């Protein structure tokens, strides 16, 4: 395919007007030594039909089953048709970051609405216009806390998603910030005693996840008390944002910075991305939040409108003094999540959240009826760790026979026979029964 709209004649006219005699002349400032001399090893070009056929082949084999009980930071949820319908609007998806507000009110208002809806949902004062993903927004929150509290020590709940733990490590290493981990208890929750212990020395912030990596709901208020005694900040990371349809707004529980992965709000699994990082905070920290923020204002005729605001935090204005290097973020996905939340509405969000809760607990009931043990005893939302008397390979085999994907091993914690299962509204009762059956088998 070619997306070049010129006719040969036009190209020639243009060359004449510029005063060159061949297209090569356009590159005469490039030293010959670095010019490509031979045809690079790239595939032969394909037509639209050709590429479709090729992709068809890829997608017609090796496709995972649709009965998915995998979670761990990405969840299989229902996406209403409205979402894609709106994302399909070229006016949205083919536009750039809204530098020119006169031509970008659509994106700007939608992002303002996104910020508002997300703030209302969690009780935050400020939500930025999106981050890359849940992990990187958590890192930014940690940096934020460090800018605010200026202590070179960070506490991290060990029940935080291991991938996120890895990302934190990568980012903190060059910054000389010490990380200490807070272990979890038998019930899967942060061990408050250990937290108290570790919080004896100064630290900028504590990072927890709730529902945590094991699906367990933390007692945020209790944790916050300990954190606040040391004048540190509490950073909450939510990876299953659907839980917000059921659980208390985190900012009412004392959270200072909330970061999250909002993939559950209308984004396809897409083999891991692009998803949607969110970061929120209280009004007092607004000047420390990274990335783009849309604010309301009026135009010269007094008409309400929206612009990017507090721009002096950003890299294009402040360069090395910016709060972050983030530039391109995830606007379109923010709009997707806005359309998602607006489509399901307040009652719908509660319904879906409750249904997740119910199905996961039904699964738990069935498991315990069948004599399986949960790894942790704490309250949970839609994800649980189960102890199973067989290896991961055997589990995979059992499940693949019945066309199920699920059960991610907790190897990171050395709990080799404990597996994480997520249950969502996409899993029918039959799917659950099938899963139970497969686990019982043999």
């Amino acid at each position, binding site marked *: *395919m070619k997306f070049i709209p010129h006719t040969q004649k036009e*190209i020639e006219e243009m060359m004449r*007007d*510029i005063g060159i005699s061949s297209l090569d002349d356009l*590159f005469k400032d*490039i030293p010959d*030594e*670095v010019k*490509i001399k031979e045809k*690079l*090893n790239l*595939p032969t070009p394909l037509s639209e039909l050709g590429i479709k056929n090729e*992709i068809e082949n890829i*997608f017609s084999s*090796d496709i*995972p089953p649709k009965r998915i009980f995998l979670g761990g930071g*990405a969840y299989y949820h229902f996406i209403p048709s409205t979402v894609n319908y*709106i994302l399909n*609007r070229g006016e949205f998806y*083919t*536009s*750039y*970051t809204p*530098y020119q507000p*006169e031509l970008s009110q659509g994106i700007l*208002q*939608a992002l303002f609405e996104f910020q508002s*809806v997300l703030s*209302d949902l969690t009780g935050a004062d*400020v939500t930025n216009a999106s981050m*890359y*993903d*849940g992990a*990187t927004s958590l890192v930014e929150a940690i940096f934020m806390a460090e800018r605010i509290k200026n202590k070179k020590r960070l506490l991290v709940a060990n029940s935080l998603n291991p991938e996120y733990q890895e990302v934190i490590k*990568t980012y903190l*290493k*060059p910054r000389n910030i010490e990380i200490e981990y807070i272990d979890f208890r038998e019930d899967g929750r942060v061990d408050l005693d250990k937290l108290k212990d570790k919080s004896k020395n100064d630290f900028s912030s504590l990072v927890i996840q709730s529902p945590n990596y094991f699906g367990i709901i933390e007692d945020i208020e209790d944790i916050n008390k300990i954190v606040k005694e040391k004048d540190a900040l509490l950073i909450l990371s939510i990876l299953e944002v659907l839980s*917000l349809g*059921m659980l208390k707004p985190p900012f009412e529980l004392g959270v200072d910075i909330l970061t999250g992965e909002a993939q559950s709000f209308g984004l396809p699994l897409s*083999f*891991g*991305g*692009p998803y949607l990082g969110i970061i929120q905070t209280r009004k007092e920290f607004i000047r420390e939040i990274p990335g783009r923020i849309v604010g*309301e204002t*009026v135009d*010269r005729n007094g008409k309400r*409108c929206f612009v990017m605001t*507090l721009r002096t935090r950003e890299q294009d204005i402040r360069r*090395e003094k*910016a709060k972050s290097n983030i530039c*391109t*973020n995830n*606007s*379109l*996905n923010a709009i997707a999540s806005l359309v998602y939340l607006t489509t399901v*509405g307040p*009652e719908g969000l509660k319904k879906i959240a409750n*249904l997740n809760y119910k199905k996961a607990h*039904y699964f738990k*009931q069935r498991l315990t009826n069948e004599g399986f043990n949960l790894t942790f005893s704490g309250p949970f939302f839609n994800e649980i760790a189960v102890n199973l008397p067989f290896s991961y390979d055997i589990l995979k085999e059992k499940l693949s026979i019945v066309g199920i994907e699920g059960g991610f091993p907790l190897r990171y914690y050395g709990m080799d026979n404990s597996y994480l299962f997520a249950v969502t509204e996409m899993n029918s009762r039959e799917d659950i029964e099938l899963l139970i059956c497969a686990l019982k088998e043999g």
Partner: protein
Amino acid sequence: MKLLNELSKRGKNKFDIEDDINSEIEMLDDKYLRDDVNIPDVSEIELIRHFISLSKDNYGVDNGFYPLGSCTMKYNPKINEDIAKREELKYFHPLTSIEYSQGLLKIMWEIEEFLKSLTGMDAFTLQPAAGAHGEYTGLRIMWEYFNEKGEKRNKVILPDSSHGTNPASSSMLGLDVIEIESKEGMVDPEKLIEVVDENTFALMLTNPNTLGFFEKDILKISKILKSKGALLYYDGANLNGFVGIARPGDMGFDAVHLNLHKTFSTPHGGGGPGSGPVGVKEFLKDYLPYPVIENSDDFYYFSKPAKSIGKVRSFFGNFSVILKAYLYIKELGFEGLKEVSQIAVLNANYIKEKLKKYYPSQFDRLVKHECILSGKIYKEYGVKTLDIAKRIMDYGFHPPTIYFPHIVDEALMIEPTETENKETLDNFIEAMIKISDEIKNNPEIVKNAPITTKIQRPDELRANKELKVKW
């Protein structure tokens, strides 16, 4: 336009979902439960009208010419969008066992091969979510390399024309930024020599740079850095200027990032998602973030490089963006990609030649993907480049990037891309000339622009002061 909360009324939304569990389920302790969810309650028809209407207040490449410099706003092929929206991807969980994801791993593996070919680098990671994320990742790899070698270097050198993300990414690593002055819009090897020393971590260079110039002394520059053991980082946001013609890997760059959402045609989505793969030379390969994709006998799997910096994000990358870029490369092939830069450069030079006498900047030389003009001669009429940009809207175009790079006074940074035809360029050129006439004859027209847009000249100061960031 109303806001969603102004349309909201409790009971409008009729969303429903079936519950097929009829067993009694233990309820969560009340203390965890919220009372209500306070998000907009509107009906589906209102929702659709609201967002359709919002979309009509937005301008994208699908609506017309979008010559935003440094942003490579080219046409986003619809076939690629369609493929990336395939049903299967909706349920392709990143933790899916690799037996099921061979096809997708192959796509990732292959695009890495393509990018290696195109850049001359030896290994790639697809993880970074955008250009800036790529910069961080690339620098982080370099940091790990020096760290491992026990070298404590902390000076990142940047030309004064560099993009804001370059210094910002350096800062995120705690590195110090040194800006050097350009000469004729390019890095001046004389100046460079003066600042490069044993403490120099790297030079970050965009090439073609943000003025649209190919850094003609690139080989000298590279030598200067290498001579002090420093590294050379390539900001590949402007690869559209010589893709298929030359390769950063052949110019001495040690690490590069590419913006798939620029050169490789994936749409920008009003500010993302993007994808910023990072490529490195052999000696940095072991430091790549994990997982990397390996292939043995056509079986694809993940592994962790020996000295990996760790992870820079969750999972493996913005897959569906990567997929679109993969498709784009397969659609174009080598000749097609070469033609991309040829025509992109043709277009940029055409605009420059036609407009340089109306909007002269201090530079006039062959450009690559974009050209810089300046509105400075119109200051005497009291007209700022911002006014010119606003006036361009009245002619139906999106304005170019303005006031960047900072080294050009009243800069207009115009990147037409290869997907704009001659007629569009001619129309734009004509409009620009008309605007210059307007400024000379009746500058108020330009100062009062735009007059055709729904909103005009928002009060940004007020926004900054009031900080109304939610309804």
